[in-house]
């Protein structure tokens, strides 16, 4: 499986302020890659660099095996899409007109409009003006717009921020469908549950560098505590070691059928985030 994105020793400075100091990672073809970090860590800066919207100070950035600046070529623009929380839709136009406009720009047959509206379940709203839609619906229209040209690589910058759970689920469904059809997804989010449930691998960006990078399961195992919580029938809760030391105690409780629940106490991605960055999620 080849790499869609390859970043080596990437640095970006704004005057004397260093947003990224030494970023190294790669994103494999077909994976959903989570890019997490506290506010101001440089996530959006990285996306802007990866989409050719921002220059960088030092390092090497390759997308689809070419220098990132090649993305400015019209044919390469068709290969990626960007979805942010700031939708960028034409308010005065209908949902359908917005999508038809992008069909023309991306050279996509107009019949795709109904197809993508079915995915985000907004077909009945297609004649409505975008200005009349809720924030969640607008975000679904933006996702539909992104689905039109089925990009090989999709950048998502906080795609579900401030969305209600129903609209969030619609977005997840659309993203999973897109990923199943082969789209590589690069996701930045503050929502740790989102990262955990969607991503194949997660990178933590902090202090201008990648601090951790692995699959969610591997990260949880790496940070797992050597203890488990046990709830007993008499209402007591005890903590035992996962090792040999407490095996006999556990066995005895099990033998007497006194155990109600056992919790392995593995950390969440949010716990790991706080541990790595030393900052609470905002």
């Amino acid at each position: 499986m080849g790499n869609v994105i390859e970043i080596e020793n990437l640095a970006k400075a704004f005057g004397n302020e260093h947003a990224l100091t030494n970023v190294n990672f790669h994103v494999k073809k077909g994976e959903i890659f989570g890019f997490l970090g506290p506010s101001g860590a440089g996530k959006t800066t990285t996306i802007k660099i990866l989409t050719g919207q921002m220059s960088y100070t030092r390092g090497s950035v390759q997308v689809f095996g070419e220098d990132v600046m090649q993305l400015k070529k019209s044919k390469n623009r068709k290969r990626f899409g960007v979805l942010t929380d700031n939708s960028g839709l034409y308010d005065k136009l209908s949902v359908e007109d917005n999508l038809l406009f992008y069909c023309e720009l991306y050279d996509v047959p107009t019949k795709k409009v109904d197809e993508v509206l079915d995915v985000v379940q907004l077909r009945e709203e297609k004649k409505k003006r975008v200005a009349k839609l809720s924030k969640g619906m607008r975000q679904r229209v933006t996702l539909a717009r992104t689905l039109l040209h089925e990009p090989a690589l999709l950048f998502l910058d906080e795609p579900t921020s401030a969305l209600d759970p129903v609209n969030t689920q619609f977005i997840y469904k659309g993203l999973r469908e897109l990923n199943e059809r082969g789209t590589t997804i690069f996701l930045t989010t503050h929502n740790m549950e989102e990262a955990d449930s969607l991503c194949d691998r997660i990178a933590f960006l902090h202090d201008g560098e990648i601090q951790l990078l692995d699959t969610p399961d591997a990260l949880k195992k790496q940070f797992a505590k050597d203890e488990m919580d046990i709830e007993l029938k008499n209402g007591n809760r005890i903590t035992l070691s996962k090792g040999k030391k407490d095996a006999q105690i556990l066995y005895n409780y099990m033998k007497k059928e006194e155990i109600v629940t056992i919790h392995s106490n593995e950390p969440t991605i949010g716990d790991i985030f706080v541990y790595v960055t030393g900052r609470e999620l905002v």
Partner: protein
Amino acid sequence: MNISMKRVKAIFMKDYKEFSRNMSISIVILMTPLLSLFYGKVGENTIDSYYFIFNMTFVMVATYVQSCLIAEEREKNTLRALILSPANVQEILLGKSLFTFSTTFFTMMVCIILIDYRPANISIITVAMLLSTLFYIALGTFIGLFAKSVMEASVYSFPAIGIFTVGTFIRLFSEQYPMLKIAHYLPNIQLIDIALKVEAGKGFVNVLPELGVILLWSIVAMIVTVIVYKKRMVD
């Protein structure tokens, strides 16, 4: 330089649909035809009064409307989406300018008919007006790219509206204040000079210097606009 006319047309049609649903901006194009109707009824117009209307049409339609269309794209973050699409800089600027060009052309024709302006040499005036349209559209694009919102674009357009409409009368004071002679090189005043020469029976060769000055203004405005656009593309 590859230009897809399909994408240019798509941007043109999108702008048309948006414009037709935007009363606050579209009402601006009615201003100069209404003024022309009034001037036309009064009769006995001079070149100065004709060109006061025409220059106002240029600055109100080609510049102001264009600046608002571009600024709105910036304000709503749709310009960013457009920049990230396969449409290149030429297609985006051409598509957006084509709509303003058509609107300016249409409004100007209505004004010319209503005010009953019949130039002695229609070819020269057509060329001069086409060159002027390019300048005013480029100026509007520049203002739109510079402004962060429609409100800002409206504010930034005011000096242009002043200079290219009322400012035309500066030349009347240039005998008194020689410093103002520099204003003669403004494209709006060059356009009036062309019209005066045409009415005096002069031909193409005689108006080449004025056409050259307007062309120069257009080229400079277009170059500056493309530079600003490219800067806006990359943070």
